[in-house]
Each structure stands twice: as C-alpha cells, then as structure tokens.
C-alpha cells in the first residue's frame, strides 16, 4: 500500500459536494453498465419491446392490429426493461449487500432508488419513442394526440418501477423473482382479454392497468373511442377515465413500495 496521505482533508480548497443529480447520474451510469453487460437482460430490454410491431407487417393499416401491436410493445417495454429488470436488480443487489453498502455513503435512499430505476426507465423511454416512427413506417397512422402517448409512457414507467420495488420487498431471492413477478405481469396482461369476457367482468377488467393502457392507445394514437372517431380536442375528455385508472394504480404502487422497501436480505 502506498504512502498516499490517509488523513482527513483539513486544508486545501473548500470541499466540493456533488449535487443530488450528479450522485444519481453517477450511480445510474454504473447501473446502466451492469444492465448492458448482462446480455440476456439487455437483449430482453432492447429487442422485446419492438418485436410486437412486426405484427404490423401482416396487414398494413389495420387499426385493430395497430392497437394490439402498439399496446403489446408498450407492455413489453414496461415489463422487461422496467419491471423485471428492476425487480431482479433490486433483489440481487439487496442479497449481495450492495444496497446496504451504498447506504453507508452520502447518497440518500431516494437517490439510490432513482439511480437503480433510471437505466431501465431510460431504455423503456427510448424504446417507446422508437416505437412511434417504426409503427408509422410499418403503416400505422400518425398519433392523434401524441401528448397522451407521452403521459401513458411516463405514468406506466412510474407504475411499473414502483411495482418492481414492492415485489422485490417480498421476493426472497433472484430465482424467486420468476414466480413473484407473476401477479404484476398478470395484472398487466389482463386487459387484453377484456373483449372476450361478459360485460360485467369486462367492466372490472377495464379498471386494470393493462386495459387502461390499451384504451389510452386507442384514444390517443388512433383517435377512436368505442368505434367513434375523435378529434384532438375530444381525445382529452375521452382519455380522462383510463388516465385516472393508470394514475390510481401508479399511486397505489408507490404507496405499497414506500411501505415495504427492504434494504437487507431476510435472515
């Protein structure tokens, strides 16, 4: 070991404390490196969200196919780079005592969580943004209200991030995540079966995040609400209910995550 000075910095320039943003970005950069270094996780994160858009090649311009493929692309973006990747990373780093180690430093708990979530959220944001030109190139119409799409992406990322932290709290180890992720995945894909259910059951399913997502894509992208064509202005009112459903689920997920966060493995 060298003769480098080991004592506290008592002289010299005033100490420079990194801002919260700098701390989060420093940690997020390392987390992104880890995400990209895991080939399977990176493959799932970067390829799966765009795969459903290949369906558009089957029948160019078919609106119901646009709805299905874009909804599936978003679902993949939320489930893989955001939910499953974050669930797995949180459980692994908790079990390896990385989170406990990080909490001994200057970084706050919130900064630590944001930096964990940021790479997956960033990848999801990029993939959902890419889905727009790719879909249009494959024959989908230009979105009627792109802002609703942006709202959907932002709320979806927040919701599935919070669900990942909540699920991690009661997931014993990384292997168990394959099973414990199922409730959230089921909740997310439930929306796609609403059309084949009896009316009362379909009404309940409409209140799931997956169904609300699909409604928002129908309204915001295709400008359709129950086969009624909407203008840009009309999309706002039509989007109120599914947006509220999404926001309510996001708030619920945040509350659950905030109440259940675990920093160390169970003994």
């Amino acid at each position, binding site marked *: *070991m*060298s003769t*480098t*000075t*080991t*004592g*506290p*910095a*008592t002289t010299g*320039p005033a*100490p*420079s*404390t*990194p801002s919260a943003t*700098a*701390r989060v*970005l*420093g*940690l997020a*950069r*390392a987390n992104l*490196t*880890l995400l990209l*270094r*895991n080939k399977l996780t990176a493959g799932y994160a970067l390829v799966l969200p765009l795969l459903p858009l290949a369906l558009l090649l089957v029948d160019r311009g078919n609106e119901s196919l646009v709805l299905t493929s874009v909804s599936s692309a978003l679902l993949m973006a939320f489930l893989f780079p955001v939910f499953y990747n974050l669930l797995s990373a949180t459980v692994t*780093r908790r079990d*390896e*005592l*990385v989170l*406990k*180690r*990080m*909490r*001994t*430093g*200057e*970084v*706050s708990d919130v*900064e630590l969580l944001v930096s964990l979530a940021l790479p997956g959220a960033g990848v999801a944001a990029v993939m959902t943004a890419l889905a727009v030109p790719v879909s249009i190139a494959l024959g989908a119409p230009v979105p009627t209200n792109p802002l609703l799409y942006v709202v959907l992406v932002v709320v979806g990322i927040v919701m599935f991030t919070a669900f990942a932290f909540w699920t991690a709290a009661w997931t014993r180890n990384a292997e168990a995540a394959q099973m414990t992720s199922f409730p959230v995945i089921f909740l997310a894909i439930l929306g796609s079966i609403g059309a084949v259910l009896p009316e009362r059951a379909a009404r309940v399913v409409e209140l799931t995040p997956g169904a609300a997502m699909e409604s928002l894509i129908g309204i915001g992208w295709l400008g359709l609400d129950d086969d009624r064509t909407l203008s840009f202005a009309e999309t706002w009112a039509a989007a109120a209910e599914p947006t509220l459903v999404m926001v309510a689920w996001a708030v619920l997920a945040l509350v659950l995550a905030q109440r259940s966060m675990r920093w160390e493995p169970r003994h």
Partner: protein
Amino acid sequence: MTNTRDDLAVEVSGLRRSYGSGKDAFEAVRGLDLAVERGTITALLGTNGAGKTSTLEVIEGLAPATGGEVRVLGLDPVADRRRVRRRTGVLLQRSGFAADLTVAETLRMWGSTVTSPRSVAESLALLDLEHRADVRVSGLSGGEQRRLDLACTLMGHPELVFLDEPSTGLDPESRRRVWRLVEDLRDGGATVLLTTHYLEEAERLSDRISIMDAGRVVREGTPAEIVEGHPSHIEFENVGATLPPLPGASVEVGHARTVISASELQPALTALLTWADAQQVTLPGLVARTATLESVFLSIADQGHADPGAPADATTDHDLEVAR
C-alpha cells in the same frame, strides 16, 4: 446528553438496541456507554453476540436505537445523516459491490457520490489495487474485495472511520498493511473506531479498548490499563514435589500441569526458580507470562458464558479469534 464534548468524536450514553417484539424480543445492547476521543484508535472487543456490530450500526446511523443517545462529531447520526456521512467512512463487517463492475468502475461510481473524493488512481494506489483496476469484482479474491471496500471507505478523506472487522479475510501480509494504513489514518488526524476478533490487532493498533459482554461495556481503558491487576501465570508439567510458598501467588495442581497465578510475576518466578535450583528439581515445559489482553478477555468471556442471560446469537458477530 445535553452537553457534547468537543474532544469526543463519538459519545454514546445508555444505548439500547432490541430485535423482535413480544415473546421473541431480544435486547442485544443493554445500556452501553462509550466515548471515543478525536484522533485516537479505539477498539471494541467482545465475544460472539456481545453486541459489537449492533452497537456500531446504531452509531453509523444504519439502525435505530431502542433507547439512549448517540452523538457522532457532535451530531445525531440519523437526523443529521447527510452532514455526518460527509465526514465519516464506514466499513461494514459484511457488504458487497456489484459483481460485474470492474474495480476502477466501482471506485468511479463510489467517488461520484462522495464530497471531495480521492481520484480513482489514488484510491487504487492506497490499497495496492492498481494491477487489479480492470478486473471485475467477481474476479477478486476475498482479501482484494475487502481492500476495495476499504478504498471506498477512505475515498472521501473521512475524519471519523468506522471499521467493522477490517482485516477479516486478509492474509497476514495484507493484514499488516491494513494495520499500517489504520495507524496512518490516526497519525493524519482521523479518529478510528474498530471492532475486531483478532486480539493482536486490538493490542497493536488501539489507543483505547472497550470490551463488551452481553450488550454492555464491561472494561475499558488503554491496553496497559486493561491488563493491569490481572494475574500473571507460570505453568509447568507436574513435578511430584511440594512447592514452597510463593509471594502473592496461588497454586493449582491439575491432572498434568501445575498453574501458578501471581499478582507480580518476577518475585513469584524468582522464588520458584530459587527453590527448584536448591532442590535440584527440573520444571519441564516451563512457561511464564504476564497478563495479556488475551487472558483478560478470556476471563471476561468465561464470566459471560456463565451468565444465563447472556445473548448467544443476537448479531452476526463472528467468534472471537485469539491470535497466538
């Protein structure tokens, strides 16, 4: 604790820490008092389950106290967490880093969160890790991971350093290097509070030692003060002769060996050797030693084991290892 002393880096008063609730509740720390002077190395020793790590985690602000008061650099480690962390470095007993980051990437990541950090190159040099800079953490030996951990601990030039078993897992050479580093920290003006299960480490490094048993400090002082008043020992294989009275000593003849406990070693040993010489008695396997930290520690540990209320497994403290 209304008035804090400026000369103290750590002040702990009446600290209590419990685990669980109801019937399963267990109190690991039971009214502990501790004062660590600035610019010193203080070692916290204790048997398995004595409460060392439980105590340290509260002082570090990582776990809440059930009772009592803790001041670190005059601040509350929980309420003033951000201000305290800027000035402290923590090495946990067990912790980890992401396995797929390299050593340099890990240090860069840690440095991005630290006030006025050392450079990555300086940190690598400090712990002799330059040649391992591009190796992933998963490829490091246990000792190298411990050194990386220590490099992160020291990255922000902390004025108070908590080291929970800093040399565990290190080979003898690395352990001695870490000792030099800890001494350099103190010589540079930093305060060090460490736990260890190597008594040699505590004896060599510490200005003061606090020995814990069953969640309390039962003895504290400089290494010399700790052993003061404890008997020296003379041992040899049984010789089948009646020993003369020895000044300030008691004799215990066991199955194979005779053990003499003496308040002062020299007069007892002189009397014994004079008698043996006069009687032409050989004392096979003769060993004479003054009281050591080890003997004091073991006597405290024996008392603790006789205490039915003593905790056995409250914390993750390792078994204490007596360095011989």
